[in-house]
């Protein structure tokens, strides 16, 4: 029974804080993401969304507070927590000199897929992401759109219950972006919990809930609809700007 209560929120940020001297890059950041939810971190550059994101997956150490993935503390049990996590970096960060298949093979093994099941799994993921004709191509020679697809494939190779995407669509054309979000929403329907950072307002609409970041703090959390209502705006962009202005006035 205890196990069940822990698993209600696959992703939890618990008072995450990052301080450099007296400057708070991230302050008092708490949120919980439900299973199958797409949770967006939104904010202008330097608002602390990247830092929060990094602390969530263990790439940066929080000054205080912690994060839990599937109920496992990322600081106390990093390896175990991370095995539940698929991670896709903003910058293409697979091995350029390895071929598409070699990259996927590598990540399959690292994420603990046994050698016997590996081939089937890699074949399957190559099929799903339409990488069949490129499988022998070194990753660095792929065009950007395909690189992103490969990164996503690598992040999903171990069927993680949680997926973290850091600006997954920056620099990608409109069609590939749409394609990408189709993938993301269908994954969410299958019950994968997704944390995504973005600065595209139209993409924010695809998220189930959004946390708006400004100067290291969350200034609003809610569905896109709620946020627009709260700000009295018709589109996300205006809502975004209004909410930021409001928070400035409050101070």
């Amino acid at each position, binding site marked *: 029974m205890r196990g069940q209560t822990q698993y209600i929120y696959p992703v939890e940020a618990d008072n995450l804080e990052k301080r450099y001297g007296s400057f708070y890059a991230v302050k008092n950041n708490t949120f919980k993401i439900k299973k199958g939810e797409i949770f967006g971190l939104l904010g202008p550059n330097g608002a602390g969304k990247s830092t929060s994101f990094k602390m969530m*997956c*263990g*790439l*940066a*150490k929080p000054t205080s507070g912690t994060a839990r993935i599937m109920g496992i503390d990322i600081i106390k049990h990093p*390896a*175990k927590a*991370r*095995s539940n*996590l698929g*991670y896709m*970096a903003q*910058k*293409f*960060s*697979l*091995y*350029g*000199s*390895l071929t598409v298949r*070699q990259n996927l*093979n*590598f*990540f399959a*093994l*690292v*994420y*603990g897929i*046994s*050698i016997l099941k590996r081939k089937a799994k890699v074949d399957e993921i190559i099929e799903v992401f339409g990488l069949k004709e490129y499988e022998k191509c*070194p990753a660095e020679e792929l065009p950007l759109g395909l690189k992103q697809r490969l990164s996503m494939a690598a992040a999903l190779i171990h069927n993680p219950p949680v997926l*973290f995407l850091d600006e997954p669509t920056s620099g990608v054309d409109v069609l590939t972006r749409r394609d990408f979000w189709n993938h993301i929403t269908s994954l969410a329907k299958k019950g994968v919990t997704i944390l995504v950072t973005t600065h595209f307002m139209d993409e924010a609409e695809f998220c189930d809930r959004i946390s708006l970041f400004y100067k290291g703090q969350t200034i609003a959390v809610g569905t896109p609809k709620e946020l627009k209502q709260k700000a009295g705006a018709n589109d996300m962009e205006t809502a975004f700007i209004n909410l930021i202005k409001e928070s400035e006035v409050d101070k």
Partner: protein
Amino acid sequence: MIREFLRRVAALIKKEFITIWNDPKTKGIIIGMPLMQLLIFSNTSTMEVQNIDTVILDRSKSVESRELISRFEYSPRFRGFYYVDNEDDFKKYFDVQKVQIGLNIPNDFSRKVKSGKGAIVQVVSDGRQTNSAAIGAGYAGQIISGYSNDLMGEPDTGINITVRNWFNPNLKYKWYILTIIVSMLSLVTTLILTSLSIARERELGTFDQLIVSPLSSFEILLGKSIPPLCIAMTLTMIMTGIIIVFFKIPFVGSVALFLLSMTISLLAIVGVGLFISAISNTQQQAILSAMTFMMPAVLLSGFLSPVEDMPMCLQYLTYLDPVRFFMVLSRGIFLKGMGLGDVMANIIPLIIIATITLTLASRTFKRKLG
């Protein structure tokens, strides 16, 4: 647990090999550079003084002086001879650095030799090249005293010296230099390979991808140490083979001890390289830091001047230098057939250095996350 651990480490090792092999630059570092340098060093770096050019001012022009000069002419050490008849020309040859040694035979040479009063011959050497000057003058001295002994005709009186050079009977400089060059080259290759490895991944962003994976620091450390170690060992064996086969340098020690001490020496270097790599953000930083380590490490190792000749405080410092032990081991086992006890005395400090640097490196992977 163990199986998963091995699987992850094996995946990392395989990936390292593929990335090293697929990158032409890295391939150059591990194959082209060491073999080319082995060839160049083996033929250029020598401290033997040969082909000495000599200027001769013979004012005596006698049978005796001719005899002395011909002894120089037939010595394998001396090559070019310039005969002059005044001191200005004599000096000129030194000024333009055409000669390293000058021989000045005075007018009264023959007369004094005949009278048995003791003749004087002046040997001038070019002090700008301190070492060759001293050695060249030494050779000249030997020839002259040889001639002098022959004139006296009684070589058995007094003390005669017999010199025997152990471990390298003919004092072939190649024996000395090549055994060290092999270890130096594997050292440089290992250091460059390891110092680039993490820095490159950090530069390309792939290191983040490794950090968010379930790989532990220890697994990353293993995956990052084993491939360069294997490559460096293979390279060492190939180069050792080359110097034994092509340069006819006798390998007198135990092969097992040689391999053991090479592995441990290289492991200590891997530790240093990975530590440098772990604290660097870019490959450029890593290479510069590697060079900063290399220079003093080589100078303190006893490669250029014996450790015993250094000031006391520097001698203590050499105990921190893995290259020092590395050097003693490779030369000692190769040429001397160093025994187990002596080998151990040099291996233990290396094990300590390797443990410290590797631990520091694996700690720094994570510390760097900030």
